[in-house]
């Protein structure tokens, strides 16, 4: 039973296991996350970005859809802090609204795809009979590179935000499922699972309390990283012309709009690209920090 005490509930937030309390009460994972300066910075940045996105209509200095082509492609300067885009729209305003759209797409896709994928992975690991079927479905899904999914879905639905969300959701399912299954398979091989079975723990408890919770760190980390990847994939799809349609402000589309002017007015493509980069970077850094804190084996 000592194995269970050491491993199983360690990831549950706040539920510090008895064995650890005896060994001198380490701080909660959240507290430990707070000690990581990079993670805190990334977290604060993400919170600010989300707030900026939510309150974009109140923060934006201009109308995101009011084009003024005579002022197009103005470099950053006094009149426009970050310059103007290909339609002469204020970059700051476009960025605020663009982030709003991009985050919405990314969150929706990752949450939907992550939930479905994680469930598939856990069931595949737990019910060995389902494993083959589920993993073959995953294989089939994975056999379509995400970009082809995007193209195919765009061909069916027409390009747009819905298309991006659908394409990103579907393409995030299989990898989450695989990673979850991988993690769950390792957990399944641990003695405490067998021990749990042996002492007659109920199946739902085994799946959710023992298996899922032990995989949670992996899933969360992967989803955080996946979030970044999905935003990148969305940008790539926009690059191929399948993103949000004009005049919708969306970071990937904005970068794509400016790419024709990269050597002429680099700010148009660069600024949204940098924002994409920073959001993805923050998500990745946070994901890393979460992994370090949440995974008990990483703790020294």
């Amino acid at each position, binding site marked *: 039973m000592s194995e269970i005490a050491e491993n199983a509930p360690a990831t549950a937030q706040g539920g510090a296991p008895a064995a650890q309390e005896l060994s001198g009460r380490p701080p909660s994972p959240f507290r430990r996350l707070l000690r990581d300066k990079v993670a805190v910075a990334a977290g604060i940045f993400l919170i600010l970005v989300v707030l900026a996105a939510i309150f974009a209509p109140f923060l934006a200095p201009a109308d995101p859809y009011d084009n003024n082509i005579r002022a197009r492609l103005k470099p950053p300067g006094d009149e426009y802090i970050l310059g103007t885009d290909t339609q002469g729209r204020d970059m700051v305003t476009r960025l605020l609204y663009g982030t709003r759209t991009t985050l919405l797409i990314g969150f929706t896709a990752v949450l939907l795809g992550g939930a479905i994928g994680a469930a598939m992975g856990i069931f595949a690991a737990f019910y060995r009979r389902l494993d*083959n079927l589920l993993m*073959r*479905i995953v*294989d*089939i899904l*994975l*056999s*379509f*590179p*995400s*970009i*082809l999914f995007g*193209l*195919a879905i765009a*061909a*069916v639905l027409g390009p747009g935000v819905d298309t991006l969300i659908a394409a990103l959701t579907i393409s995030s399912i299989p*990898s989450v499922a*695989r*990673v979850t299954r*991988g993690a769950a398979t390792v957990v399944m091989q641990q003695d405490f699972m067998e021990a749990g079975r042996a002492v007659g723990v109920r199946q739902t408890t085994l799946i959710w309390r023992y298996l899922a919770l032990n995989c949670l760190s992996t899933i969360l980390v992967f989803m955080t*990283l996946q979030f*970044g*990847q999905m935003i*990148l*994939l969305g*940008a*790539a799809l926009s*690059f*191929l*012309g399948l993103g949000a349609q004009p005049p919708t402000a969306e970071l*990937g589309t904005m*970068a*794509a709009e400016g*790419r024709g002017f*990269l*050597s002429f007015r680099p700010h148009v*493509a*660069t600024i949204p*690209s940098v924002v*994409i*980069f*920073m959001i*993805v*970077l923050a998500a*990745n*850094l946070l994901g*890393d920090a979460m*992994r370090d804190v949440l995974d008990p*084996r*990483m703790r*020294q």
Partner: protein
Amino acid sequence: MGRHIVHRSLISIPVLFGVLAIGFMLLQVIPTDPATVLAGPTASPQEIESIRESMGLNEPIVYQFLLYLSRVLQGDLGRSFISNTPVAQELGTAIGPTVELMVASLIWAVPLGIMLGTFAATMRGSIVDRAVVALSVAGVSMPIFWFGLILIQYVGTEWNLLPYLGRAGPLWTVDGLRSIALPAITLGGIFVGPVARMTRTAVLEVLGADYVRTARAKGVYEGRVVIRHALRNALIPIVTLVGLQVGFLLGGAVVTETIFAWPGVGRLAVGAIISSDFPLAQGAILVLAISFIVVNLIVDLTYAMLDPRIRKA
């Protein structure tokens, strides 16, 4: 081991079938009517109808699928609507450049990633570790098209060091090598990060494991601990990752091929789907899927070879 190979290969068959079915279905629901495209902009409705008839587009869908399957099994992927060349031939010329690009990207990105990851893990918390982590995180966070365009802008244009206008020849020629350099740096560049971070994580995980602790306690030399025990065990997740990322890599290849005008399958597939080149799109998807299945098979087998527990089973 032999049984494992046969078993794994057999399992691939239904996957392949599923891929064919999905590819077929996806393109069935596309609103663009292939007969209209084939007939051209000046065709009358009667002409379009007769083309529909001759293409079998008026037959029941199941029949169309079976027809498609039987043709595919005979190696006949149809003819491209656009160029009228056999799809198999178009794909045949495109697959080489794509494989070249992938190999040229992986050949430096994977070893570099593993190296960086291992260094970082063994020197956990040091400045090296931080640098590698920062670099790899920055690498994974970079939009690939932006990376490619920056390379073109600086390495290609301002410094005029390398060409970026498609494939100038096979890999073993100087021109060929020069022309693949920037695409391979772009595509490989987005791959170093994931490999490095996964390696680092995997090695760290293994370094914390009991048997490593035991080895250390027994006084085994640290380098030997890292290579013999940690890295070897860590290779399993790394191999899985590389296998998993082949789809991701293909996606990256599509963008890379587009930016660098690289005549590969990715560019072909995108072009085909965008231009409603029905047979070519189906063929390209099939080829991409089959190559994925093959890679996946290889990954599984490598996995089995590396992991003694699976090898025995």
